[in-house]
């Protein structure tokens, strides 16, 4: 991608259609998918949302030295309604996953989630903690994982480029967000004695029954003996 000057026609042009050399800088022959993805990937607006340590590196990526506005990302929106990309930049706690799922549900399609760093991907060094979610993908779908603790700005940009590749591979005919019907939101977790994922309600019930029956089995045994 060119960092300045006019639009990058090389990225738009479909190599299946050869053009004479003199015209390459002014004309591009392309497919609808390619235009669609080319414009989408060059205007991914991230949500202005920092969680923990990785957020500092995310801000450093936004700042002048690494400057992710070169990828059309400088408009970090504070409202999820205007954002395309949710960067989970840090440890997700059980208390925080509730707002995060809500934010995710509020984002319009097409939306992408980038798990930045070890914590967001799989719990990281804090995984064993009682208030830590072991990976945001336990609650919302993640598109790109960027390992590192924390990933350096360059590693994060590599993550963005990986996301661009994913966007490029999508086709306007098959993407889910133009299908009819409503896309169901993700059920908001509940803060009970521990965090409860409503999708696991049945499982929790079964476990409780199992525990109760174990108890019953265990209880009469000493009485008989």
């Amino acid at each position: 991608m060119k960092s300045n000057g006019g639009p990058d026609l090389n990225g738009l042009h479909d190599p299946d259609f050869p053009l004479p050399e003199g015209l390459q800088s002014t004309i591009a022959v392309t497919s609808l998918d390619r235009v669609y993805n080319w414009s989408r990937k060059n205007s991914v607006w991230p949500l202005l949302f920092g969680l923990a340590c990785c957020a500092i590196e995310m801000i450093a990526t936004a700042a002048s030295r690494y400057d992710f506005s070169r990828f059309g990302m400088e408009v970090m929106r504070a409202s999820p309604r205007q954002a395309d990309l949710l960067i989970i930049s840090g440890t997700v706690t059980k208390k925080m996953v509730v707002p995060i799922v809500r934010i995710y549900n509020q984002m319009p399609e097409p939306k992408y989630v980038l798990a930045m760093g070890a914590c967001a991907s799989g719990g990281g060094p804090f995984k064993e903690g009682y208030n830590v979610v072991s990976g945001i993908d336990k609650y919302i779908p993640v598109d790109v994982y960027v390992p590192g603790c924390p990933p350096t700005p360059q590693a994060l940009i590599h993550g963005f480029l990986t996301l661009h590749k994913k966007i490029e591979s999508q086709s306007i005919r098959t993407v889910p967000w133009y299908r009819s019907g409503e896309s169901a939101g993700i059920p908001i977790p509940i803060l009970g004695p521990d965090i409860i994922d409503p999708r696991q309600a049945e499982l929790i019930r079964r476990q409780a029954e199992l525990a109760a029956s174990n108890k019953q089995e265990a209880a009469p045994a000493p009485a008989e003996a």
Partner: protein
Amino acid sequence: MYGLGVLKGMGVTLKHFVETYIEDLKYLGKGKRSVEAFTVRQGLRGKSLGLFTVEYPEEKIAVPERFRFVPFLVINNLDDPDLPGADWCTSCGICAKVCPPQCIWIVRGTDPETGRPKPAPEAFYIDIDICMNCGYCAEFCPFDAIKMDHDYELASYDRIGEHIFDKKKLSKEFRYYRSLYPTLSAEEAEARGGWEHKDVLKAKAKAEKAQSAGAPAQPGR
């Protein structure tokens, strides 16, 4: 006067704006991505006027020697004459013990014939979703066998299948380690007594000892 402070602030911004053009003029004709320009702009040499954008991925800041990302295991070069591809790791377990988030799993190797533990790992795993890149494993390894990698371009679409690194994925040739850590590897080699694998050095020392001990016994040779 009211407004002076704001004007002064604007002046600073304007100065930054103009300076970038002056800076660009300096390197006119030298090519935008010349190494010379990069050195000056990303450091403090040659009085550059500020800090400049690194246009990743077309240009990347090479990370310094001590940079820490996920660990890797050092193995002998695959074309090594003595022990090609041999593990440096002896599965002593110090890295697993010292690891703060406990992201290292090691299966100690056993000799199939004697059943006794042998100094090489059967399996070695690092869960990079737990690893905190602290560098303790590399720092405390007594055999210089585990080191921190510099390759940070690891973004992927899947973590379940990819983010537990096994021994195959972790192992990198000694040559690679030497190129990443020119200073440290030299220091270690000096402490060890040579560039070769510890076993080779041991064998050599033994042979030498035997030779020097045996030398007076065979005067006729």
